[in-house]
């Protein structure tokens, strides 16, 4: 067996060029497939992280009718017992109570339909963490001239700063990333000039947090009072005055146009639904277990009163977006592999055709055809493994680094990304199954490509082969 393997290894180097070309085509295919797929999957993970993990939660507990008819009337009673029973599930990381509804906001002559998210100020920190989104710096055009005068800024940096005129930031780090400014001293100077006041809500706060775009549209300042009006529980009238405590920047532009956070108690009071909730948002320890947890949670609950929905159900658009994009990537990879497949196929055909006589001699002196086929398969596996292993080795530092330190976009591109609701990063997925699948695909391709050519060995006519 060792001799056979050794023979196969030496055989592939009889035509060095062909082996290298075939392996190289596998190498490139696998390299591009891995890198591309890693970017894709990384982006999907990130999208899910951004709009599910840090906003809606992976699962939501709702009243049974809420899913088809989301509204305050389809709310349910909030009890510590219920919350604890969810939080006690070993797979549940955190469950937080929410009241979500709509209202009309107005200040002065401006008014706009908005979305209210009533949150448990403390608990919510462990799910959507609105405090993290608090706007702390704003590049108000009125003050930007002062920023441009800061000594030590390069032309490029000023250009980048100009792109972000009127934009809001959560942290100096974000300014650094988006505008490409590394100098800590300069950053601090910028921070000083552009600092924006505003604070997170306190427990039972009667003020609100307003999303960035909404605040700009309504021309709200911290301390302004917003008038909210709407329909409350069972058709009651909801109305109230809400001082603005802070501005939050929500990644999704859609939400950023219309979101208002208020404390849970204030929201319940406003809508006249004491102790009622519209949803419990739930995050998990292991997101791949979502469906299992959904099932087990459901089975523990009175299903006449509560249902548990997963994000793919309450956010089908995100699911479809990801699936649609993923199909595109898969098609590309399939095309890539089909091309490589024919390359391998051609190689096997030639490898066999040009050695007819040799196979004839070997069979004549007593080597079984099965063993001859086996040698060819090992040769192909060598060629395939050569391409696949080198391709995986070459792509793994990229995957590793791209996953650990995602590519940060800056300037115009970053702004474009953010305007579409994506964070300006291009993360790569880690060494998930997709990575190892590429190797499996190559092995299958090699075997598939060898299948028909190998038949010609099985059907080898000894006399014909010897005369070849």
């Amino acid at each position, binding site marked *: 067996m060792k*001799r056979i393997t050794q023979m196969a290894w030496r055989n592939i180097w009889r035509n060095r060029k062909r082996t290298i070309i075939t392996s190289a085509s596998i190498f490139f295919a696998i390299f591009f497939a891995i890198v591309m797929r890693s970017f894709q999957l990384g982006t999907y993970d990130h999208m899910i992280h951004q709009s599910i993990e840090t906003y809606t939660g992976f699962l939501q507990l709702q009243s049974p009718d809420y899913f088809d008819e989301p509204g305050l009337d389809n709310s349910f009673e909030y009890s510590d017992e219920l919350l604890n029973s969810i939080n006690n599930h070993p797979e549940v990381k955190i469950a937080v109570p929410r009241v979500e509804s709509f209202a009309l906001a107005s200040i002065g002559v401006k008014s706009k339909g908005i979305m209210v998210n009533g949150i448990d100020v403390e608990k919510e920190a462990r799910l959507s963490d609105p405090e993290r989104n608090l706007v702390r710096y704003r590049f108000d055009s009125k003050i930007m001239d002062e920023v441009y005068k800061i000594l030590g800024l390069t032309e490029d940096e000023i250009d980048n700063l100009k792109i972000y005129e009127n934009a809001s930031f959560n942290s100096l780090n974000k300014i650094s990333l988006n505008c490409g400014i590394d100098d800590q001293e300069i950053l601090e100077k910028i921070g000083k000039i552009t600092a924006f006041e505003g604070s997170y809500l306190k427990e039972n706060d009667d003020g609100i947090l307003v999303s960035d775009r909404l605040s700009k549209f309504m021309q709200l300042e911290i301390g302004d009072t917003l008038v909210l009006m709407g329909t409350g529980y069972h058709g009651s009238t909801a109305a109230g005055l809400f001082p603005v405590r802070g501005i939050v920047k929500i990644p999704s532009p859609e939400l950023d146009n219309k979101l208002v956070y208020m404390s849970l108690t204030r929201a319940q009071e406003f809508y006249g639904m004491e102790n009622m909730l519209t949803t419990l948002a739930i995050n998990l320890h292991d997101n791949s277990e979502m469906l299992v947890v959904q099932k087990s949670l459901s089975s523990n609950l009175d299903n006449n009163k509560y249902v548990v929905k997963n994000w793919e159900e309450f956010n089908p658009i995100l699911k479809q977006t990801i699936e649609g994009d993923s199909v595109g990537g898969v098609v590309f990879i399939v095309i890539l592999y089909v091309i490589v497949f024919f390359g391998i196929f051609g190689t096997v055909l030639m490898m066999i055709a040009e050695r007819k006589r*040799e196979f004839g001699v070997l069979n004549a002196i007593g080597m079984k055809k099965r063993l001859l086929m086996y040698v060819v398969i090992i040769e192909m596996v060598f060629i395939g493994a050569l391409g696949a292993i080198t391709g995986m080795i070459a792509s793994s530092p990229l995957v590793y680094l791209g996953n650990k330190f995602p590519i940060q976009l800056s300037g115009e591109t970053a702004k474009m990304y953010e305007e579409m609701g994506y964070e300006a990063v291009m993360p790569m997925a880690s060494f998930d199954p997709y990575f190892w699948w590429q190797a499996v695909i190559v092995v299958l391709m090699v075997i598939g490509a060898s299948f028909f050519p190998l038949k010609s060995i099985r059907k080898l006519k000894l006399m014909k082969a010897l005369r070849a």
Partner: protein
Amino acid sequence: MKVIEIKDLRKTYNESEVKVHAVNGVTLDFEEGEFAAIVGPSGSGKTTLLNMVGGLDDPTSGEVFVGGTKMNELKGEALTDFRLNNIGFVFQSYNLIPVLTAKENTEFVMRLQGKSARDCDARTEELLKSVGLGERMNARPAKLSGGQQQRVAVARALASKPKFILADEPTANLDSTSTETLLDIMEKLNKEENITFVFSTHDARVVKKARRVITIEDGKIISDIRKNGGEKINN
């Protein structure tokens, strides 16, 4: 003891309109230890006959027994195995596996027989020495002359301890010195180790060395002469 028995062997090709009787009723025996040449003009049927005797080609009719086994009844892998264990082959050219060294080539059939590397080692070395290639054991075929390659082929043919060795024009591609050397080696092996050789040839010098000369024409044996110590016996 009869190593090979051939009974009314025929091979007919129907490929064109005319039937070609490449081997046309050959009946022939070979005893252990023979050193026999099959001669005849081109197209007389030497290769066809040897191929059938070696179990490489199917006869149209007739029988071949090797060591008492009726070879015509073997098929597929059983036949391949039979060749491996009973018959040694030396072809006119391209005998050797190009990626294996002389030693590995020689050893190859023994490994196919399932012998361990250690068992093979001593024997291959001995065989290569006896064909005069003790010094070139680790050379690949491309680095050997045509004559040396044929000697390796002889060593390989012997490695499996076959009942006899078939060689179809083993010297056709060799110059006269190499031919001489190869023949001397074959003769020595035949005399000293009683190995049966059956070979075909066009070469008068090769014929001279043979102790039995079978002449065939148009697929038929026209003479079968045994030389015993220079004496010619016509039968």
